[in-house]
């Protein structure tokens, strides 16, 4: 009836799949590197060619780690928002969090010229961009929260999210009008979204913030279960609703903001992965969904990233295109079976 034992084999399979996806991601790319050499370079041994080792350690490993962290973080952020807003269609991109993050980054990159030298120097550093983009998504979440308390209709929240996206899009448009071509180029490249090209120091910042966000989410597992019955029941079971809501929002904006700051907006992962976990585990228990979402989020983004660099191909497709091509049909399918709440 309610056994957690049933899930253990699924967790093991997902764990193995994650390792496979990670190694596959490392071994595929424009340069073909034999699998055994991938393992050698990772374990500190020597690959048959020193260039291969260089490619693995300085190009592919950072990219795979970014995919891993971004997949985990965006998916958990989506899970948090779906429960908090009682809306199966909530997600970082749907609710406009990614747009909020974009707006933060746009202000920093495009507006840095208006700031005095020292300040603009700080804001253009990775810390500044992380701060701006987290603040951007936090603001959007707060705004949605205010609106969602006035409107009990859960579908209205999605429309509000859409409005925020257009609104921030328009402001970014206005900002680009006043910025130099150099700034514009920088912002355009960022907004296309890419998991690659991150130096190790950025990955460390990303990892630290992601782990902090995931830990904050972990302490909300029990209150999230209570929230499945709605705010009033949760309160009646001893949950401090305001505190829980604050932690959830902080965690979601840290995760979405930081990941978006480094990789650019990545669509659909945060919306779709929690549903995949819910379908696989057929439960509402957030403990199981949390672990399941982390594992499947990482696997899915690693696999999507592998698709962007098809073997033998010179081109690298934008990650956002791949996640949208896979994600959009899944969302439509989820809507079609709406009579069965997910």
């Amino acid at each position, binding site marked *: 009836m309610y056994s957690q034992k049933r899930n253990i084999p699924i967790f093991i399979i997902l764990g193995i799949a994650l390792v496979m996806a990670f190694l596959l991601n490392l071994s595929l790319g424009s340069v073909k590197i034999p699998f055994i050499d991938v393992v050698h370079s990772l374990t500190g041994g020597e690959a048959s060619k020193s260039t291969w080792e260089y490619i693995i350690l300085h190009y592919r490993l950072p990219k795979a780690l970014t995919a891993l962290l971004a997949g985990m973080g965006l998916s958990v952020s989506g899970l948090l928002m779906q429960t908090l807003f009682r809306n*199966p269609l909530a997600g970082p991109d749907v609710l406009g969090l990614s747009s909020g993050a974009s707006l933060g980054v746009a202000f920093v990159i495009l507006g840095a010229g208006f700031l005095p030298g020292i300040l603009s120097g700080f804001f253009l550093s990775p810390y500044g961009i992380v701060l701006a983009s987290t603040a951007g998504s936090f603001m959007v979440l707060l705004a949605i929260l205010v609106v969602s308390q006035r409107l009990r209709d859960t579908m209205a929240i999605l429309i509000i999210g859409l409005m925020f996206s257009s609104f921030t899009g328009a402001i970014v448009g206005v900002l680009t009008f006043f910025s130099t071509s150099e700034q514009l180029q920088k912002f355009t490249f960022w907004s296309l979204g890419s998991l690659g090209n991150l130096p190790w120091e950025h990955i460390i910042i990303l990892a630290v913030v992601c782990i902090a966000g995931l830990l904050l989410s972990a302490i909300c597992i029990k209150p999230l279960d209570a929230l499945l019955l709605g705010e009033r*029941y949760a309160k*009646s079971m001893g949950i401090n609703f305001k505190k829980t809501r604050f932690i959830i929002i902080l965690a979601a904006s840290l995760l979405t903001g930081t990941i978006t700051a480094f990789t650019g907006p990545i669509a659909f992962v945060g919306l779709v992965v929690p549903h995949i976990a819910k379908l696989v585990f057929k439960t509402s228990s957030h403990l199981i969904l949390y672990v399941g979402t982390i594992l499947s989020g990482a696997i899915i983004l690693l696999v999507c990233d592998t698709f962007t660099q098809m073997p033998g191909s010179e081109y690298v497709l934008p990650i956002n295109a791949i996640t949208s091509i896979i994600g959009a049909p899944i969302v439509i399918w989820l809507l079609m079976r709406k009579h069965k709440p997910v």
Partner: protein
Amino acid sequence: MAADAKTQTGISMEKKIVLSAQDLSIGYQHKKQNETIAQAINLAFEESNLIALIGANGIGKSTLLRTLTGIQKPLLGEVQLNHKNINSYSSSELAQNLAVVLTESLPPSNLTVFELVALGRQPYTNWLGKLSPEDLDSVNKAISLTQIDGIAHKKHFEISDGQLQKVLIARALAQDTPLIVLDEPTTHLDLQHKVNLIRLLKKLASETAKCILYSTHDLDLALQLSDQIVVMTSNDVVQGTPEYLMEHHAFDKLFNDKSIRFNSHKGGFVIR
């Protein structure tokens, strides 16, 4: 009439009083003035009792329930749960003494009936919400008391309204509190299911020694199946046994409409 409720209602000395209110005024606090909805309310609810709260729409039943469950502070007086002011409980303490069943519909989720009932154990579980063997015991006991064993594996959106009410009551039972408050549990149910539900509440009150308070519009059912009734009118709030209240014509003033009259022989309202 409400001033000395205890002498009127003939409360026996052996039974423990779970919830009581002394000289309670309820209402809303606005910036400068208070909006009083009802005042001088005296109530005493005992263990093993099923108590019905009746009153016309808009008379302030919800406000009274909100005040009695500690969600809203009284304007005057205090509500005592287990002889302690309800507003001085911490939220986790309160969760171990008071369980509620609400009218609002549940948000979409994949919760099974069993998982839903198990959520009632939240005040007792660790930070991950893991169920101990004792927790599982309480959950299974609540499920068998409410006779929902057959649907325990179903999703909560796959069952009927009547079954869902039972499941929500089982969740409140699993919370293992001396007091359970239900907000209009019989709405949306047909007569047969209403009767079954109130019978179930009556059985639970006597078998588990809990005090169960519910608000309702079904006076005839309340008269036949409750131990005590609280009648709320625009003038006062009166508590008593069904017989006592009928004798004292407490139901005559329930509706502010001369064409609806209470007939004490039939135990119900007659429309002229």
